[in-house]
């Protein structure tokens, strides 16, 4: 089916809009199904499943033609619709008749009704007088009021704030690293590659930053041997900006660029 026809079928009632890309944003498959039911003035308790499935799939095709990403949920619903459709076609066997089989559409209808209730509730919510939109409160300027610092300090914090802070830490440090902060039994080869990763892209790191309190003795030794090995391989350059100052490691490939940086560092330091 050509694209324009589908559009006029589905969304645009006037043909003049046929060439304009008119595709509504749906929150999800349930939202789309409710739209189709409303547009076709269907009885939600007696959905003509074949026709609604057809229109639903047309919508997905349209999305595909427009190169829009189709979320997985839309595809799952398409499969559900097709399954209901095929179950509707099955003849009812006598035994099943006794058991009063559930209408294959029942589950879907329940979900649609439930979803509709919450969608209506969301419209009601947004029609309220919102703080900062229709009603305003005053700003609280505690400096203006109090001359002395707070004495009791009840802490005002939500669990999510804690979790979110932690998420940021995890964003900086990989999970694997997090699980094994201080790696035991790391090989020199692994440590060399770690150090090189740190220096990747012409970065400079301090010698000290490779050693921490609480590292195992093994790791300290391995780290030190790795640095010696890297020097021997001429992969890194060790510099000291001033005597007794910090020792800096740079990757030798970018040594020229880094020398400039180090000069700046020197200016900053002293």
């Amino acid at each position, binding site marked *: 089916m050509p694209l324009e026809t589908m559009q006029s079928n589905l969304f645009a009632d006037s043909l003049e809009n046929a060439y304009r890309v008119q595709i509504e944003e749906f929150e999800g498959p349930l939202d789309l199904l409710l739209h189709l039911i409303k547009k076709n003035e269907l009885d939600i308790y007696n959905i003509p499943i074949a026709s609604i499935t057809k229109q639903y799939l047309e919508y997905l095709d349209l999305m595909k033609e427009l190169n829009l990403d189709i979320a997985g949920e839309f595809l799952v619903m398409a499969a559900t619709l097709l399954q209901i459709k095929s179950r509707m076609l099955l003849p009812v066997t006598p035994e099943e008749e006794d058991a009063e089989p559930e209408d294959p559409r029942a589950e879907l209808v329940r979900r649609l009704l439930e979803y509709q209730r919450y969608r209506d509730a969301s419209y009601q919510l947004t029609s309220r007088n919102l*703080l900062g939109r229709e009603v305003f409160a005053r700003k609280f300027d505690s400096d203006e009021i109090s001359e002395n610092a707070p004495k009791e300090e009840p802490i005002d914090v*939500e669990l999510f704030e804690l979790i979110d802070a932690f998420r940021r830490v995890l964003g900086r440090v990989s999970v694997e690293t997090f699980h094994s902060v201080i790696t035991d039994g790391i090989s020199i080869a692994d440590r060399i590659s770690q150090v090189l990763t740190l220096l990747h892209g012409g970065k400079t790191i301090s010698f000290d930053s490779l050693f921490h309190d609480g590292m195992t003795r093994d790791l300290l030794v391995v780290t030190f041997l790795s640095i010696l090995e890297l020097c021997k391989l001429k992969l890194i350059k060790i510099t000291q900006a001033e005597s007794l100052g910090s020792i800096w490691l740079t990757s030798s490939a970018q040594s020229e660029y880094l020398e400039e940086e180090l000069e700046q560092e020197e200016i900053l330091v002293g």
Partner: protein
Amino acid sequence: MSARTLKTIIESLLFVYDQPLTLDRLALLLEEFERSAIRSALEELVQEYEEAQRGIVLAQVAGGYQLRSRPEHADYIRRLTKSRGVKFSQSALETLAIIAYRQPITRAEIEYLRGVDSGGVLKSLLEKKLLRILGKKDVPGKPLIYGTSREFLELFGLKDLNALPTLKEIQELAPPDPFADQPALPLDPVEAP
């Protein structure tokens, strides 16, 4: 000290503070007054504000009392503050409504009801502090349980969760439910497609 004075003290406190003040909090702050006296002063204040039809209203939100500007004057106030206020996406509102009415609720339950992945919208609502993590559900996988926060009540001007408008009964909107005798909506996440 007279009841008149107590009323004006409370009005001063409400005026200065930017968050709702509860009776408990006021009783703690105004320790030289009887709790019952504070309560009746508050009630009188509420009535006075209602009757006076002024530019400031005394709202009962999030279990407390808060002075707020009259909603009808929002357009004029916006000229001053240039604030356009919060804007919610449909998906944020939907999710918020589901959580408000169904809490405590897990992410899988929300996603079953909405029919779409809701991780991103949950995160943004948490960041806006409109949601709280209430704990973990005692089922396999121990999923997190979500609920709405005090900020949610403040934003929407709700006294408490009971002040939420009731969900329209489906019977009101539609003919009798032919599936009424069937078991309630399964919210088992396993069943979610």
